[in-house]
């Protein structure tokens, strides 16, 4: 039994764990990766023996060193698939084991919002954050000729990394206009180093950037070959003539979504806030949720990015005490929100989702099928899910829920808050049955008797 279990070893989770350790608690941190760092400070693969230092490796190594020299227990390559609270004790289920604690800090980070368009399932089309995992872990590029498309600051980071690692960026296709960026520059002034870095990236790719535009179709037989794009209006609705780009790889995404599955399964109250990336746990300024002994920190508590994450982590550990110290995240919060604002979905995006496009990649459910289900009476995500299987596949609805809700909003006129979310259920990740149960022999299963009818 631990005083504190932390789920997720990114900058928020690790700082929460170390702070809790400093406060004298016994702490265990769990992560599904092989080492700490999260997505933002992801560690290099063991296949890389030596490489030039980067901000990712320096900050990631500092985080890992700090964790190593603390008393925090660690469990890597472990996946939490279920969370239960029994009286005052948390039961945290991982593969073939149940861990217990008095307090639970959830720091599961974020995943990507990726708007479904025709061809988005083609091999070679990957998420922007997925591309950063390739850079950080493997120091490799996604292809020889890459189109980088979507919104927010990640576009420029990804393009810069591709060329640093020897790839070629065919074009950056940015939903945001130059004016969107100018507006956020005012807030970036509070972070002069990042402002300068951002300025260098944008100027380096200025000629390759196609502003206020979006891919409308990805084409290819076995993998991506062509990207068709159009200009968009201020509402992000595609307009005007089609332009065709050649590419053997595409990095594509429209910002980040808080990974709230764990805090929902733990029973915390959530609400919708587009300025924080979507649905977030309802918390106080230290990360206390509506459930006693449950705390959240980092991007899963609202997308504020890597600068705010360490402070949010420390606050979550302090929150265990009623009189804990609150560290100020003021300017990091403003900066994080300005970056998140660049990816708040606008109504016109829906026009990119063609009626025959698979919105649910796992189960192959099209926009047309979802709309039909809603029009014929299914208005909640649960009803749509049971009627069409949209959101029932192995990804757990993570890559279709946002688009499905956008479609529902459009058809019914309801708000996202009114539409709600599907019921939170285990497993949090797909699990082989033999990792959940004892070894199973089918012959041992009791066979029920014949029904009297």
């Amino acid at each position, binding site marked *: 039994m631990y005083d504190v279990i932390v789920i997720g070893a990114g900058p928020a989770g690790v700082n929460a764990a170390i702070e809790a350790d400093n406060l004298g608690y016994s702490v265990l941190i769990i992560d599904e990766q092989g080492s700490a760092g999260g997505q933002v400070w992801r560690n290099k693969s063991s296949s*890389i023996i030596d490489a030039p230092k980067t901000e990712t490796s320096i900050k990631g190594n500092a985080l890992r060193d700090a964790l190593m020299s603390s008393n925090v227990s660690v469990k890597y390559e472990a996946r939490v698939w279920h969370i239960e609270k029994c009286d005052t004790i948390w039961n945290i289920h991982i593969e073939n084991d149940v861990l217990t604690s008095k307090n639970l800090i959830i720091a599961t980070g974020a995943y990507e919002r990726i708007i479904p368009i025709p061809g988005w399932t083609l091999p070679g089309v990957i998420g922007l954050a997925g591309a950063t995992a390739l850079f950080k872990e493997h120091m490799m590029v996604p292809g020889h000729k890459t189109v980088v498309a979507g919104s927010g600051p990640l576009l420029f980071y990804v393009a810069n990394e591709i060329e640093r690692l020897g790839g070629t960026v065919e074009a950056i296709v940015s939903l945001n206009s130059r004016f969107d960026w100018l507006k956020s520059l005012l807030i970036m002034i509070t972070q002069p180093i990042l402002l300068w870095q951002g300025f260098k990236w944008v100027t380096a790719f200025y000629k390759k950037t196609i502003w206020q535009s979006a891919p409308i179709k990805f084409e290819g037989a076995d993998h991506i070959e062509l990207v068709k794009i159009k200009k968009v209006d201020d509402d992000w609705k595609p307009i005007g003539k089609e332009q065709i780009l050649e590419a053997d790889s595409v990095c594509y995404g429209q910002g980040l979504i808080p990974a709230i599955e764990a805090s929902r399964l733990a029973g915390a109250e959530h609400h919708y806030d587009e300025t924080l990336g979507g649905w977030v746990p309802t918390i106080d300024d230290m990360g206390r949720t509506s459930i006693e002994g449950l705390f959240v920190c980092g991007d899963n508590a609202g997308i504020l990015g890597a600068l705010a994450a360490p402070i949010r982590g420390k606050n979550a550990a302090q929150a265990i005490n009623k009189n804990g110290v609150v560290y100020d995240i003021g300017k990091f919060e403003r900066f994080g929100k300005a970056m998140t604002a660049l990816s708040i979905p606008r109504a016109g995006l829906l026009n990119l989702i063609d009626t025959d496009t698979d919105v649910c990649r796992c189960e192959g459910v099209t926009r047309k099928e979802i709309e039909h289900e809603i029009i014929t009476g299914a208005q909640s995500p649960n009803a749509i899910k049971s009627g069409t299987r949209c959101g029932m596949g192995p990804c757990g609805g*993570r*890559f279709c829920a946002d688009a499905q809700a956008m479609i529902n909003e459009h058809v019914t006129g309801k708000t996202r808050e009114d539409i709600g979310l599907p019921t939170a259920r285990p497993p949090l990740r797909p699990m082989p049955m033999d990792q959940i149960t004892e070894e199973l022999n089918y012959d041992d299963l009791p066979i029920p008797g014949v029904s009297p009818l």
Partner: protein
Amino acid sequence: MIRRAAEITFQFDGDEFTAFDGETISAALLRSGQKNIRSAPTGAPRGMFCGMGVCQECVVEVDGKKTEACRKKVKAGLIVRKATYV
């Protein structure tokens, strides 16, 4: 200068591929240009998508078990098969 581990070989869907020892299956296949690594239930080709163990698009079979290619490390002689159904 990036220094990488020794090259090894492994099998995917009956064909031989090279990899740097310790990298993930998805990274090794992508480097060799093998982007299509799975067929969706609809029959459509699929490859690595989220790159962080969430989307399950890159699931393959190793030793009869389904596993995400983006989380499973390659080792010499590993036999990787296309997943039959995910």
